């Protein structure tokens, strides 16, 4: 609060005075604050917060530390086999060093190229790497996360094809499907979940996930052909680490490729921020949502970077913009840029292979346990479904007591199914420890 300002406010962080509030209420024609909020049904209102009295900074820090200590985080003796969309991969120390520099420590969009050349260049590099990784022509500067990137891809496919139905393949993460449904509700687009490539002539796209949510490889080439023969775009959700060893979306005919970028140098955390990667074919560039950084030359012929094609963004085109994305994920994008630069093409391949081999080792070990089974033939990369002898929630509770964060409970899809994720972070000892704990739980 500015020094010297005298206010008769009931709260130090709410600067408007009783007179200010009276003036505002009069201007909008409401008699009281309660009248102003009369449209909000009573059941959704909090009837006054029951807060404890204010405490000192020291006491507050202690309280928050105690709360934080109740979390169980992977590492320091706790093994994690949880995946399903967020993945624990090694983060080289270069990432924190670069991301933590104060020059970059504003996540917001640099609209002014005259003062933002460094940030704009890192965004341009991320776009270039996204294109190389996905084997696509153009990329934007990032979306909120993988799920919203997929939803934006579906909206974009509808704009390109002028159709209003979206087909989402059963391989797609159910959480992503939920976000697609949310985005589709406003513009009134229909969302169909499909098991095959059988589309109708009013489908704008077929969206698939490779590898599938439950870990297996899908026949992306056939599905891509099926989508194209129906006049629809083919949208692929890819695991960026998997591309170190598996075919990239461009190889199997994707028109739009999206990915969750969290795996690339960003820790698993609840609630974000994460990073959506988004790339497409050159011919669709004018329907690409979000911001794009372009490389150009200034009057003296020097290389420079600018936000380009802004005419399609909401600050110029309002409700007809290609997207209503506001927040720049630049800081997470910078982490992905530094990560990919650090590990390089060969490193990405080695990381992918380590995941692959460790996951296969774990799957064979668990499949050999009494009461557990794994369809080994379906395992393609780093995740696989284990059919357990008991409820997954119960098993996971017991595992947690032994310092193991178990796999994702997918028993809503497969009876007693646990989606286990193994990455390069899981040591041989951790994998053996998981198998041993599972065997004991089954007894």
């Amino acid at each position, binding site marked *: 609060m500015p020094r010297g300002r005298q206010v008769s406010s009931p709260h130090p962080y709410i600067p408007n005075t009783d007179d200010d509030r009276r003036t505002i209420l009069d201007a909008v024609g409401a008699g009281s604050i309660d009248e102003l909020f009369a449209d909000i049904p009573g059941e959704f209102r909090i009837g006054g917060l029951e807060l404890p009295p204010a405490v000192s900074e020291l006491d507050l820090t202690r309280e928050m530390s105690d709360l934080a200590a109740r979390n169980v985080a992977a590492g320091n003796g706790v093994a994690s086999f949880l995946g399903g969309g967020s993945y624990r991969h090694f983060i080289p120390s270069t990432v924190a060093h670069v991301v933590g520099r104060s020059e970059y420590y504003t996540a917001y969009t640099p609209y002014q190229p005259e003062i933002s050349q460094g940030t704009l260049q890192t965004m341009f590099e991320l776009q270039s790497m996204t294109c190389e990784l996905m084997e696509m022509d153009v990329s934007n500067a990032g979306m909120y996360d993988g799920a919203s990137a997929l939803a934006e891809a579906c909206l974009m496919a509808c704009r390109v094809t002028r159709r209003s139905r979206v087909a989402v393949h059963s391989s797609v993460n159910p959480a992503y499907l939920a976000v697609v449904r949310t985005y589709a509700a406003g513009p009134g687009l229909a969302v169909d979940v499909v098991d095959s490539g059988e589309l109708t002539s009013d489908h704008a796209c077929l969206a698939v996930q490779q590898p599938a949510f439950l870990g297996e490889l899908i026949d992306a080439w056939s599905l891509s052909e099926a989508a194209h023969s129906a006049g629809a775009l083919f949208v692929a959700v890819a695991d960026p680490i998997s591309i170190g060893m598996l075919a990239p979306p461009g190889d199997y005919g994707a028109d739009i490729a999206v990915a969750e970028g969290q795996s690339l140098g960003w820790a698993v955390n609840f609630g974000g921020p994460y990073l959506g990667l988004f790339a497409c074919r050159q011919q669709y560039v*004018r329907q690409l949502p979000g911001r794009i950084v372009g490389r150009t030359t200034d009057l003296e012929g020097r290389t420079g970077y600018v936000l380009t094609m802004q*005419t399609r963004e909401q600050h*110029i*085109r309002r409700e007809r913009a290609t997207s209503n994305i506001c927040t720049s994920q630049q800081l997470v994008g910078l982490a992905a840029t530094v990560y990919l630069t650090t590990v390089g093409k060969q490193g990405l391949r080695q990381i992918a292979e380590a995941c692959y081999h460790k996951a296969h080792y774990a799957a064979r070990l668990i499949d050999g346990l009494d009461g557990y089974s794994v369809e080994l033939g379906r395992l393609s990369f780093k995740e696989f479904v284990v059919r357990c002898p008991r409820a997954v929630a119960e098993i996971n509770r017991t595992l947690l007591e032994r310092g193991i964060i178990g796999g994702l409970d997918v028993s809503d899809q497969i009876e007693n199914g646990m989606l286990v994720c193994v990455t390069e972070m899981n040591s041989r000892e951790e994998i053996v420890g998981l198998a041993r704990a599972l065997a004991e739980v089954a007894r």
Partner: protein
Amino acid sequence: MPSPADLKYTKEHEWVRVEGTIGTVGITDYAQDQLGDIVFVDLPAAGATVSQLQKFGEIESVKAVSELYSPVTGEVTEVNTNLAERPELVNDSPYGEGWMLRIRLSDPAEIEKLLSAAEYDEFIAQGEA
């Protein structure tokens, strides 16, 4: 400079030149001047149908993206494919090489609803005032 007298105009700044049953459509000199350098024109394919005063495409300049509205109803018989490579033709020659569509008119009487050159010039003069 007055708008060409042989054309009809919309308040959305498109023009149409009717020759027999075919109408040639473009945007006015005033519109291209307001938009600035044109960088992209998104047009429907030949065979598509368009309706009077309904959106048929988009035009993008360095400043903005705007909708294009058809002055007439009918089937698109021809599209100016030169604009894909040379969108600046719209700036250089809005009533000539910068044309956009040829449309087979399904209702020639619709033309009467459009503005004459004098009416259009008065309309933009009012907007400027």
